[in-house]
């Protein structure tokens, strides 16, 4: 297997703060690669640069052999990258199914289609329902999104990422704010994805990380201080000192 994603010398500063500092990572195809690190290590900034919502100051992001660092955010989905948000980012006033259907719709070329009611496009509704079923939200399909619980919102985020059928899935703390049972459920869902997609997972929940990750990179002050298998990371002194030791 080859590296589907290579980040080379990525740098990003905000005013005086260096959020990303000469960051280098290689992610293998179909691996589940976790990024861990203390708060403020720059994990979400990294994801934002990968999804295109923020532009790096310098550096290269090589995805499937091409440097996408300059590619506008809305083109990255078509390039094969999907992202979930740490702070839930959904269309709250629309129904649950509408949200997922939109994600599916985004894959179908352009949406300059003015005549048929979107809700009567059968394949979008059916595929959407089946995605919702995967995350266990099928019965709530027609409810307005704002009526769902936080845990259900996190599952919606996952369903939306799945809708993209992306080659690279960027998951930003999918477990954020979840209780024990919901976390377990999420871990099971993510386990089901392993090996079929390349996943870059940012998480704080160490149990989940060690249960899911093929490899882990540790991010401290915007820089990767160690990359390796879970065992290697567990045994790495620098990592223990910088991060795990503080827990």
């Amino acid at each position, binding site marked *: 297997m080859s590296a589907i994603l290579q980040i080379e010398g990525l740098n990003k500063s905000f005013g005086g703060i260096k959020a990303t500092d000469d960051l280098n990572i290689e992610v293998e195809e179909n691996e589940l690669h976790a990024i861990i690190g203390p708060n403020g290590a720059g994990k979400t900034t990294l994801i934002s640069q990968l999804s295109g919502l923020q532009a790096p100051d310098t550096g290269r992001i090589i995805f499937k052999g091409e440097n996408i660092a300059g590619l506008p955010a809305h083109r990255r989905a*078509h390039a094969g990258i999907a992202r979930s948000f740490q702070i839930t980012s*959904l*269309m709250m006033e*629309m129904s649950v199914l509408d949200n997922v259907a939109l994600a599916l*719709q985004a894959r179908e070329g352009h949406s300059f*289609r003015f*005549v048929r*009611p979107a809700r009567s496009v059968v394949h979008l509704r059916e595929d959407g329902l089946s995605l919702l079923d995967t995350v266990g939200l099928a019965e709530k399909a027609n409810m307005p999104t704002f009526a769902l619980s936080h845990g259900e919102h996190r599952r919606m985020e996952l369903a939306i990422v799945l809708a993209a059928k992306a080659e690279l899935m960027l998951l930003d703390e999918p477990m954020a704010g979840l209780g024990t049972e919901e976390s377990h459920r999420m871990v099971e869902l993510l386990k089901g994805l392993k090996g079929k997609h390349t996943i870059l997972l940012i998480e704080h929940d160490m149990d989940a990380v060690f249960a899911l990750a093929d490899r882990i990179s540790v991010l401290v002050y915007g820089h990767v201080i160690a990359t390796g298998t879970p065992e290697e990371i567990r045994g790495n002194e620098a990592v223990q000192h910088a991060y795990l030791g503080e827990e």
Partner: protein
Amino acid sequence: MNRKLVTTIVVLLALGLIPPVLYAAGFVFYLDLATRLTILAIAAVSLNLILGFGGMVSFGHAAYLGLGAYAVGIPAHHWLYGGLENLGLATTSGLVQFPLAIAAAALFALVTGAICLRTKGVYFIMITMAFAQMVYYLFVSIEEYGGDDGLVIDTRSELPLVSFDDPLQLFGFSYVSLVAAVLLVWMIVNSRFGMVIQGAKENEERMTTLGFNTYLYRLVAYVISGAMAGYAGALLGNFTTFISPEMMDWARSGELLFMVILGGAASVIGPVLGAVAFIVIEEVLSTFTIYWHLPFGLMLMAVVLFGKGGLMGLLGRRQAA
């Protein structure tokens, strides 16, 4: 049957039946009022496509009304006084004027929208206002078309099968146009295109990440909205036969915004209700005093301070369009 659908049908039916009945009974005035109302309602409905559903607050929508009206006035003027024959624009034919109105409005929307839509929030509001004012000053400066004093047309648009000189037919044509406008906007809003626009209004970042070029979709919606208002402008020019830059003054844009907010921006029919309420209140107040702008202004301020969701909002929040 949901409330929005019922309200839509009731309002449209009432609007279609009551004025002709009053006219037949000898009350000509109400037919004229209704004609003006339906025309402004078309403009308000088109504004709400981008405002209520797209989140784009345009304070320059009256520019399209003006452009549409001049698209009728200018050819009619040249037909009478000569000039522009080689462009085919010296004519009273509605088959030239109406498409011209739509095209001129669409072009203006495309060019100004391409610039405005790179901004948002307050910038967007102010820039749309400024562009509308630009067109206002443009027409003020063109002496041939009357400048500040405006343009009077002798002959209304000539269309096969219908004579605009008959107030009942003009009303009927405008009314049918309004129904078509409502259906068109409803169709667009519920289509896949409409889903993108609504999604972009709610969560731009999410939509971009999903892969939608929101700028482009918004621009298309903006052009459609402008074109519809241009069509309404052509009707307006025919109705008043007096076409002046006043029609595109930013205060007129403010009135259109008010119709939308008053009626409710969350539904397609809301702006029509708003137009009805606006025109009725305007008429009632002006019979009491020539200073009716004072209570009117106070009322508008009250609506902003206390009226959540407009008239449609009284029927219940958060329903699908």
